[in-house]
């Protein structure tokens, strides 16, 4: 019967259309699965057994609770003090620190096709992430955080021979274990606890540029022992009165002596030094380039106007005194200190010592290939070390030496920032290690009245680091 055949054909055609429609939506897979309202992505991420992060001795800094609680596996930070280095992981708010930079490894993502990946996908096995071992030393990290106490600021410690970051403290900090609960409050806090002041804190360098100027003068072959006129006198920069960090002895001061007492007058108008040469030293010592730490994303301020382009002497003086348009991070200040301790070479900093693939027992070292950048001659580096040693013995860095029995070398200075010229204090220092090299530290404090406080904190941090690295590290049982 014709009508039956027509109805049958119509029904078959409709079924075919439905089948084609099913195929159509399957083909639009990539577009639809990438939608933000697709809960599968969140569920897949939640099911991942994220890898662990260890300190150099094997202390677990970040791990994942093994039980799946229906809302995703919980990320645990047994030592929240390590947060500035380890960062955070949140299903809701993303990642930071090493958790961000090593996210692919920690979450077991890989682009390379492998049999294991194929089998895991076929059997829908929850991916397991790899592990990361940091160069960080939990003991030094805790000491740095303790030394900073209630001050707002940053402290970074490295071993100079290999550029390994041993401590990275930023205060105020936050507890990454309670990030999801506290996030709305944390983002509103005026003292910005979410800001990593080591990698993201951008500060006025102020008197800490004196180390750069002195090293540059040595490099240029200028005499640093000749008296500098009016070196001990305060200078007025942009309405701010800059005076010596500590009272100098009576009489004319040489450039080296001005450095010992952190007297800005000698450096605000270096005699016989063209502005272009100062700009070149800033470039050489990494003060206007992005600092690099293997394993972390770092910040840099906007490029300043070169001093050679400045017409007004007062602006040049401000730039020389570290009160101009140049702003820096603590990592940039670290470059020159690490070069002084490392025979004039700035090492490539590393925060990650080794990684381990999912399911593997073998660690693969993250090698910085001994990369370093020569910025000083060995002689000039040794000379700078000696001057800084004197500063620690009888000069501006003496409060740092008072914190340790190790032979500390250092320098401290004040900078002023913001329209209300709030003082912030810098300390740079180093302690030689018995097995070669040194531990170097940079401390910056936002809310302290005197550079002696930064020096004291720096001394405590360096003492802890020297104690930790003058003995062979003990592994976790």
């Amino acid at each position, binding site marked *: 019967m014709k009508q039956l055949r027509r109805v049958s054909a119509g029904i078959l055609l409709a079924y075919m259309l439905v089948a084609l429609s*099913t195929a159509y939506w399957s083909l639009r897979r990539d577009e639809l699965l990438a939608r933000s309202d697709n809960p599968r992505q969140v569920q897949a991420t939640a099911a991942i057994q994220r890898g662990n992060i260890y300190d150099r001795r094997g202390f677990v800094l970040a791990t994942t609770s093994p039980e799946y609680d229906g809302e995703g596996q919980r990320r645990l930070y047994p030592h929240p003090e390590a947060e500035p280095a380890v960062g955070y992981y949140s299903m809701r708010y993303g990642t930071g620190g090493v958790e961000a930079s090593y996210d692919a490894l920690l979450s077991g993502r890989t682009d390379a096709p492998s049999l294991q990946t194929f089998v895991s996908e076929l059997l829908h096995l929850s991916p397991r992430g790899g592990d990361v071992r940091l160069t960080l030393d939990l003991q030094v990290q805790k000491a740095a955080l303790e030394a900073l106490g209630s001050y707002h600021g940053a402290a970074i410690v490295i071993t100079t021979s290999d550029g390994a970051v041993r401590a990275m403290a930023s205060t105020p900090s936050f507890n990454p274990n309670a990030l999801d609960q506290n996030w709305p409050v944390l983002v509103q806090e005026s003292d910005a606890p979410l800001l990593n002041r080591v990698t993201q804190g951008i500060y006025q360098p102020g008197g800490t540029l004196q180390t750069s100027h002195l090293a540059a003068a040595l490099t240029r072959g200028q005499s640093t022992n000749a008296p500098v006129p009016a070196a001990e006198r305060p200078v007025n920069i942009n309405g701010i009165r800059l005076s010596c960090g500590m009272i100098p002895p009576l009489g004319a001061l040489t450039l080296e002596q001005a450095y010992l007492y952190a007297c800005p007058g000698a450096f605000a108008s270096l005699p016989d030094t063209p502005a272009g040469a100062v700009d070149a030293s800033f470039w050489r010592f990494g003060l206007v380039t992005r600092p690099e730490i293997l394993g972390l994303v770092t910040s840099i301020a906007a490029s300043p106007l070169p001093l050679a382009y400045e017409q007004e002497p007062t602006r040049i003086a401000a730039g020389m005194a570290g009160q101009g348009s140049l702003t820096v991070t603590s990592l940039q200040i670290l470059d020159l200190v690490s070069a002084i301790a490392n025979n004039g070479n700035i090492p490539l900093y590393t925060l990650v010592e080794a990684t381990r693939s999912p399911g593997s027992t073998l660690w693969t070292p993250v090698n910085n290939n001994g990369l370093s950048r020569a910025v000083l001659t060995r002689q000039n580096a040794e000379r700078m070390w000696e001057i800084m040693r004197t500063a620690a013995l009888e000069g501006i860095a003496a409060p740092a030496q008072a914190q340790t029995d190790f032979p500390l070398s250092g320098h401290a200075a004040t900078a002023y920032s913001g329209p209300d010229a709030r003082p912030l204090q810098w300390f740079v220092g180093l302690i030689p290690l018995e097995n070669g090299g040194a531990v170097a530290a940079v401390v910056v404090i936002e809310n302290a009245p005197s550079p002696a406080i930064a020096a004291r904190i720096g001394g405590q941090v360096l003492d802890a680091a020297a104690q930790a690295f003058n003995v062979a590290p003990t592994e976790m049982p």
Partner: protein
Amino acid sequence: MNFSQVTQYCTQRERYLLTVSGLFLLLTALTLGIVQKSLWPPLILLAIWSASAFAGHNLLNQILPQRDPLLFPIAMLLTGWGLALILRLAPVFAWRQALWLAVSLVAMLAISTLPTHLRWLRRYRYTWLFGGLCLLLVTIMLGVNPSGFGPRLWLGLGGLYFQPSELLKLMLVIFLASYLADYHEDIHLAWKRRRWIPSFRAMGPLLLMWGLCTVMTIWQRDLGTAALFFIVFLTMLYIASQRTIYVVLGLAMLLLASVAAYHLYDVVELRIDVWLNPWAEAGGRGYQIVQSLIAFSAGGMFGQGIGMGAPQAVPVVQSDFIFAAVGEEWGLVGAVNMIICLAVLTMRGMQIASLWTASPFRMLLAAGLSVLLATQSLLILGGVLKLIPLTGVTLPFVSYGGSSLLINFILIGLFLVLSSPSASQEDDLT
């Protein structure tokens, strides 16, 4: 082939198909058990399914030895597939659905056991339809919704719920088949006599009954069933009258009714708007359909595997949107296979109709039941795939819903009776 050879062929083929279905379901049950770390629930359900299949097959061998060997295995395969899905998506409903499977099987066997002349069905057409309408009326007055909200389309008794509109679908097809079998010549000849509309005697009761069904369904806001009634009515009228003009007129009426409904009913406006552009309200009114489409995409070619996808993201996935779960967990291959199963079931029904061209009632009944099955399947399949506006009907045999399962097994029972050559044509005598 002689009688015994035909019987043996039917029996062996049906047994073979049931065995293949059983193996597929065994694999599914084992996978689900491993994934959910609980082997017993899927295996117990499989045991219930196997017992039902075994009992149904053996009893049918005695009742209707020369039946169509494809109908029962395909219905059982789809039901078993649905049971596995319901256990995976909403375990609490799976046991209730298994109970309904047993009830449905008994109903199918009872239909098969009744006299094959079908006179009882044809003669009491008004009784059947009025019975269905009365139940519907009771539902309007005393209806409940098992979930506590939404349209109250169910009658509850002792924890079990029955949806009378499901029964009404079947009653309507029986009524239309019986009525059109009596008056098809009159309707057909009306055009030859240059009368645009057949006599009221011929068309009046039919239109009245259809209108009554439709009004009552719209009253209940069960628009899916209303659309189903209209399409089934139109198709049966076309087959009986052999006039294309009815289809043209009917489609024009449907278009007008749709435009009117769009402006009159919020629910229709919502469905149409969401159909046209669900992406604009993917987080609100379009959430269900958007999640359904994402589920198909997530399934890809071979699917995620049972228990391994996330079809729960689609609201009420165990009922109206169960095909989205098939798409995600069995992929395009699984979804197309399910479509083929439903298409084969429909086509076998149409083939049975073509066997009975000499008996208008049997032909119209088989064709009507096929169209009913196909329309219901296509309405919901097209709805979840954004091919047509969504209508809230179940996917036959697969979706969770006891009333739907019961009626569909009764439909299979009628198909089996009609497919048996032993059935006499006495029913044509009124």
